[in-house]
């Protein structure tokens, strides 16, 4: 036993040295210039947490000395605490690529303001890394939950209420239009904040006989093959697989629905653009429904909320193609997917749409009127190479919102791409890619102007209030 204790202490000491090494790394990266204060929040959090984990490891020495735990129990306990060191490295990895030399800085102010208009106490970090991975997520909430009641809990005070980490593939950092999917991720945060699951889940009805029948059918099938899973384990498997799917899928679909309320057609355009590139239409997992089902919900909502019949023929035809594709039944590749698909039927999709509406404030919702204005006015400006960052009379212009700019950009991309191409210098119009790059540049410039205009308006308000 003494040798186990000595090894445990050695393990603690080694981990403490690694915690100090993390502090060294923090000292190195904290001097970088970051585009968002959120990066600094993460670095400070890691530094503070490393010190507290060091303290926690010290406390674990007392657990070793107390001689209460069996060697395997002690090993498991100590190992869990020492595993926090690689976890800190993961956090530091989040801010990599968010410094001024890598992060697409023009995007941040507008994205940050938009996010704060929905979640005032939020912060956003945009990292650009050399990996093909587009992801957005809040890390502050999970960190608070994880460390709640532990000695590291106090470090969480260094974090904003919500800290969205956006990762953009470096190679595609200029493709601004795909950022319409940010509204889906905000949908996740609203789903949690508005406790939508509490209202929505009890209204989603599972087919009881199908669930019950699944257990016996699977057992009988396995019995015939001569490899039956014990009944208890089969019950466990079925319970886990079904509940994970229905919970996860409802959450993802609700986030899509909220995204449609926030950004309108732009979320749909961004989503299908990403999905067509990287996802199989019928591929689902225990956390995510098949893209075909997600497209179906989004199109259903667009047809209910927007005057799609008055859209430009190019756009109507684009929507009709997706409509016909999404109308085909999703092919579940296993009985759990099939059961989830039976459960999340058209009525459930409408329920998700209705509940998602109540999760968004009226003032935050994009509308058919705005879409008509944005596609008429701002798309025309883009075609004239004028970034639509502000609108209104010269002396009294106001900034154009993020959703409006992205919608106008998509409209040009999908309806007027060739017309836009003809307006470009032959060098820029050389290929589809060079043309798209020019469009993205214009959209990015519009976002930058919108950010500057908004900052100016805020400064004027602050000045009136005597804040500066």
């Amino acid at each position, binding site marked *: 036993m003494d040798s186990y204790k000595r090894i445990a202490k050695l393990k603690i000491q080694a981990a403490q040295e690694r915690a100090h090494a993390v502090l060294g790394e923090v000292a190195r990266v904290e001097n970088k210039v970051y585009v968002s204060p959120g990066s600094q929040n993460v670095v400070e959090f890691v530094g503070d947490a490393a010190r507290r984990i060091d303290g926690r490891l010290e406390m674990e020495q007392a657990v070793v000395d107390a001689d209460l735990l069996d060697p395997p129990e002690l090993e498991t306990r100590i190992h869990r605490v020492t*595993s926090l060191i690689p976890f800190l490295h993961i956090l530091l990895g989040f801010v990599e690529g968010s410094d001024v030399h890598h992060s697409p800085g023009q995007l941040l102010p507008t994205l940050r303001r938009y996010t704060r208009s929905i979640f005032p106490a939020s912060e956003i970090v945009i990292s650009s890394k050399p990996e093909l991975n587009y992801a957005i997520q809040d890390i502050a909430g999970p960190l608070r939950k994880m460390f709640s009641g532990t000695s590291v809990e106090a470090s969480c005070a260094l974090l904003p209420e919500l800290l969205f980490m956006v990762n953009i593939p470096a190679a595609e950092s200029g493709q601004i239009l795909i950022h319409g999917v940010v509204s889906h991720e905000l949908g996740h945060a609203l789903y949690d904040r508005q406790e939508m699951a*509490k209202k929505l889940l009890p209204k989603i009805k599972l087919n009881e006989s199908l669930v019950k029948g699944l257990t016996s059918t699977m057992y009988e099938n396995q019995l015939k093959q001569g490899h039956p899973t014990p009944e208890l384990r089969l019950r466990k498997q079925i319970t886990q697989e079904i509940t994970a799917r229905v919970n996860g899928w409802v959450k993802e679909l609700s986030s899509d629905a909220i995204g449609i309320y926030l950004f309108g057609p732009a979320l749909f355009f961004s989503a299908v653009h990403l999905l067509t590139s990287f996802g199989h239409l019928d591929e689902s997992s225990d956390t995510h429904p098949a893209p075909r089902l997600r497209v179906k919900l989004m199109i259903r909502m667009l047809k209910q909320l927007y005057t799609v019949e008055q859209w430009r023929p190019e756009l109507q035809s684009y929507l009709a193609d997706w409509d016909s594709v999404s109308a085909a039944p999703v092919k579940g590749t296993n009985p759990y997917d099939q059961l989830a698909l039976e459960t999340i039927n058209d009525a459930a999709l409408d329920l998700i749409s209705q509940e998602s509406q109540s999760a968004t404030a009226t003032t935050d919702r994009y509308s058919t009127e705005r879409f008509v204005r944005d596609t008429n006015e701002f798309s025309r400006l883009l075609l004239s190479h004028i970034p639509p960052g502000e609108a209104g009379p010269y002396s009294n212009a106001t900034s154009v919102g993020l959703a409006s700019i992205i919608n106008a950009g998509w409209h040009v991309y999908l309806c007027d791409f060739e017309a836009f191409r003809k307006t470009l210098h032959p060098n820029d119009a050389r290929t589809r890619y060079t043309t798209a790059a020019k469009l993205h540049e214009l959209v990015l410039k519009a976002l930058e102007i919108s950010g500057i205009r908004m900052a100016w308006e805020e400064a004027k308000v602050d000045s009136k209030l005597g804040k500066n």
Partner: protein
Amino acid sequence: MHTEHRFLDLAESFKNGFLLDDIVLALARAEKGQPLGENDREVLGKAVSMLDFAEAGFRWVDNPELTTETRSAATFFARAVNALPTVHAPDAFLKNITELKKTAVELSTGAATPTLEKVRLLRTFFYNTAQSELDRTEQLLEGEGGADVLKWTATKG
């Protein structure tokens, strides 16, 4: 795989693991006959809740309704099944969970003193659960296992 995708699951796995380790420590104290402090009783109260969830998860198939607690019930049921590797029959599982819960309630409330054998059974159950949670944490740290993947993302490598 990319770290971002696993983050939610990883944070949750750590959180569960910390609690499970504390439950094991409290049970070790109880087995050694040491007095249980307020903290110990609190974590043992959480052990009771976990066992309640495990039971609810077991029964879910018989009445498959969805609530915000359904997912937790399914998760704790799965953990409980894994922590009782020699139990295969549904009735035996329920009997085990009921017994374990009785012991946990007695310890958390101080209403009675369970036998050392019963405390050891409960301790073994929670140690098995803690170990399997650590395996999951390790998998997530190394980039394996189920992950809360944003399906917008393209993951290669």
